[in-house]
């Protein structure tokens, strides 16, 4: 409306994600997805090896220190992903029973229980 005043528009802060802890955590949370992708790639290599009869070559590859190191990071990243993702779920899904809103911690608890169960079952299936 006013041509007589000039406003100050700050320049874009390139390092915005370092400006606060919350932003940094957000960015880390998002970047866990890189390791999700890595994990998938790694598992595909395993499947390929298993189907092609090249499992020993794969286990040798997997035993290299840098691969183990990478997978340790991937483990941390995917676990972080799981925790954050399952915690955020109640935001998108508000459950109401007869007008009573199921509190977030219950939904989160349910999610984490499911995660543990699935993990246990998989562990059992693979190592049995």
């Amino acid at each position: 409306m006013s041509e007589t005043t000039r406003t100050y528009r700050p320049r874009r802060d390139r390092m915005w994600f370092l400006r606060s802890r919350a932003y940094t955590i957000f960015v880390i949370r998002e970047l866990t997805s890189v390791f999700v992708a890595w994990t998938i790639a790694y598992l595909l290599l395993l499947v390929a090896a298993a189907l092609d009869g090249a499992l020993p070559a794969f286990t040798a590859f997997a035993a290299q220190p840098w691969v183990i190191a990478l997978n340790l990071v991937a483990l941390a990243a995917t676990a972080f992903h799981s925790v954050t993702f399952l915690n955020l779920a109640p935001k998108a899904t508000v459950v109401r029973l007869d007008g009573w809103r199921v509190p977030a911690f219950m939904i989160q608890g349910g999610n984490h229980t499911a995660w543990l169960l699935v993990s246990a079952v998989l562990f059992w299936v693979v190592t049995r």
Partner: protein
Amino acid sequence: MSAKATRAARLTGGERTITLEISRFRPEQDSEPVFETFDVPLRDDWAVLDGLNHVKDQLDGTLSFRWSCRMGVCGSCGMTVNGKPRLTCGTFLTEFGAGPVRIEPLKGFPVIRDLVVEIDDFLAKLSHVKPWLIREGEELPLTAEYAQTPEQLEAYKQYSMCINCMLCYSACPVYVLNPDFLGPAAIALAQRYNLDSRDQGDRLDLLNTDEGVWGCTFVGECTSACPKHVDPAEAIQRYKVTAAMRSVLPWGRR
């Protein structure tokens, strides 16, 4: 205000002080903001806003900022206090120990002067999401209400508590990077009507867009910043579910 403030000073002596580092931008003389420091009395019951009023009333009459209710309900006194978006009338000086307290205008908005920012953009967005009750067909006569049980009220109540203070916009990196994003409060207010059992409108076309709910990447800081527990992040994620379901289900679009 000054009256109360100075009276407080007289009654308790005024020995402790705290330093305020205030961002100044005077378009006639500054090409970009500069900081100026002021010492103000530090009292247990003083909010940051009381400190600013002390500056304006006693030290430098040229300082500009908005405020009105001093009870956290008019939504005009939002500023960046030590890096965080806060309502200055509800933030006590004692929270900052020995200080200093750095006070800047809300980030993410053009600065008009000193601590005053331009929020016309939000008002345009607010109008855009049709934040009013939409009814179809016959209106009830003025002797009867649209019945709404306490449970139905509860379903949207939280989203109706928004005081338009803009803290959530300031906290949202997506908005700061992309001013076209509809933003947390506007979407929360759209949801306030969507979830109102009396509303018969449809805001899918307004919200189901790249600048609408899909602009949000769920940073979640809007909710942390909100002084009224509106939880705009939740409002947005919930509408994402709605919009996604209505997009894939054949009967979703009327």
